[in-house]
């Protein structure tokens, strides 16, 4: 029984890390309809900035996170203006080509500037402790990530479903020309949403770095993971993404515990089963 609880805690924590890192992708893919394979690259940029700020400049963790998010957005703005703007509304495959190209470039540049080694982001003492749950200990950092995940989920859901901006964003995505004809400044809407998505990517990259460490190849190494959780959840749906992350996190964790040698099998068979049952994803938005 204790083991079950223990695995449950691990599953929850892992699922939440996945959620925090990939939710930004759900925004770009589901709402902006851009298959943004460079999502991981932005997460990685966030990680590098945070690492530089916290480790090399010795800034406080919270401050490093903030700088990472803002810095990544600043880096992303010209990329959005020059490159992404050209692929909004283009066929998915064109977007794949462009965003893979962007990923390659960012990897190359990161490798050149920071070298191929792992970069850590020193966490404050409070997050480094182990917290006892009675039946086991977990690191405080994991609990912190769970809290972040919940906060992000709630905030983002409110932003998209309840604010005027969210409605305009969804309208612009459905039919940009029509939204413009109704007075929606689609370019501004897109730019802001992109900034939000990139900011989330950076945030996820930083707080998730304990599990997915920052190195130049990060951008490609975890691309599939991000793509899978977002699509299984149903791109664009916050509850869907949350459900998918928790579910897949649980499957992955349980699989790795029960039969580690078949962990990969277990995980991908489960993915096939889920998509088989929910061909649009757990909470796919109707098209």
């Amino acid at each position: 029984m204790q083991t079950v609880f223990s695995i449950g805690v691990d599953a929850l924590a892992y699922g939440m890390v996945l959620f925090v890192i990939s939710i930004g992708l759900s925004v770009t893919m589901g709402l902006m309809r851009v298959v943004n394979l460079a999502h991981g690259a932005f997460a990685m940029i966030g990680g590098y900035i945070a690492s530089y700020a916290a480790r090399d400049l010795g800034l406080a963790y919270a401050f490093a996170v903030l700088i990472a998010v803002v810095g990544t957005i600043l880096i992303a703005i010209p990329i959005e203006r020059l490159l992404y703007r050209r692929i909004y509304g283009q066929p998915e495959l064109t977007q794949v080509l462009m965003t893979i190209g962007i990923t390659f470039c960012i990897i190359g540049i990161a490798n050149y500037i920071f070298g191929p080694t792992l970069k850590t982001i020193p966490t404050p003492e409070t997050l480094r402790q182990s917290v006892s749950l009675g039946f086991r200990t977990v690191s405080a950092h994991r609990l912190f990530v769970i809290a972040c995940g919940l906060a992000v989920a709630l905030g983002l859901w409110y932003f998209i479903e309840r604010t005027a901006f969210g409605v305009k964003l969804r309208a612009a995505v459905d039919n940009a020309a029509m939204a413009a004809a109704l007075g929606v400044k689609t370019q501004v809407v897109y730019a802001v949403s992109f900034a939000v998505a990139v900011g989330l990517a950076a945030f996820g990259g930083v707080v998730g770095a304990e599990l997915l460490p920052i190195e130049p190849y990060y951008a490609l190494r975890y691309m599939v993971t991000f793509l899978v959780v977002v699509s299984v959840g149903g791109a664009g749906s916050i509850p869907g993404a949350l459900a998918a992350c928790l579910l897949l996190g649980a499957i992955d964790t349980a699989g790795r515990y029960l039969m580690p040698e078949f962990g990969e099998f277990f995980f991908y068979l489960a993915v096939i089963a889920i998509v088989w049952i929910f061909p649009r994803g757990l909470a796919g938005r109707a098209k």
Partner: protein
Amino acid sequence: DTIKVGVVGPFSGPFALQGKNFKAGIDAYMALNGSTVGDDTIEIIYRDIPTADPAQSKALSQELVVKEGVQYLAGFYFTPDAMAATPLLEQANVPMVVMNAATSAIVTKSPFVVRTSFTTWQTSTPIAKVAFDGGTKKVISVVSDYGPGVDAEAAFKAGFEKAGGAVVEAIRMPLQTNDFSPIMQRIKDSGAEGVFAFLPSGPTTLGFVKAFNENGLKDAGIKFFAPGDLTQESDLPALGEAALGLQTTFHYAVSHDSAENKKFVEAAAKAIGNPAELSFPAVGAYDGMHVIYKMIEATGGEQDAAKAVDAVKGLSWESPRGPVTIDPESRHITQNIYLREVAKAEDGTYYNKEIQTFEKQGDPGLAAAK
């Protein structure tokens, strides 16, 4: 004349760091020993294989031989890449100097293969003795599920059971494992007193070691044993505090205290740019170049693979890692294996501190396969 050496390795992609070390080792050797042998100038031609890809390796090796006209093939970080190129050697009359790939069987694939790195069996066997002698009798083995991992598991098991210990459970986990918490739970549940681990060097080692500590295994007194891939120097800055005290066995530590090594580290650090990136493939490449230079000397620059390989059989020299010999029969390197412990230096950096030496170790893997 110009003699060309083709070096195949991962110079981009997730293992770019290891490829970079190849180059650093080669550059260091040429910086210290000049780029000529007799009247011949040595030219290195690099070819990139980001991840294990035997077909690509074979195509590139073939291209190096027929198009670039290389007289020596070298490098090869991954076993399948080395294996794939061996059928070419005889027809092409080209020796291959393996600078990393660590599966025992490679040298048996062709009489023209010489290896200057190590084998997983070679580095994983001594740690079994260390574990048993340290009083650990029950161990769980946890390895990544691919060739080297399976080798490490077998090597440790053989050594540990021979010593009298018991491997209570052997887990193979997928290479793409991000979260090791469930594995740690398994280790806890197994009731073992120690864990033997093998993971490819790189980001996953960090996750593994952290999970080991955070899930309370370290505090619970479970011992941690691994070959030195896990604490390669270039990962240490990231591992940091978490790795402190980990004991591993390996053939080379950057901190190895010898004049040869000082010279090497200085030159290699200069070549690689950032000294913190220096790691074991560099020494494999450095010694590989030594072997190639000796081969060129022996053949006088003529292309004669058989003669070249014969010339280095039984060759002994003082490598940065210590005294080494090319075993005349297997053409694999006989060397010292060191037990090391991760320690903190005065300047706050972490390093592998050698604490015990197992002298003149051959490759037990070949014997085991027989």
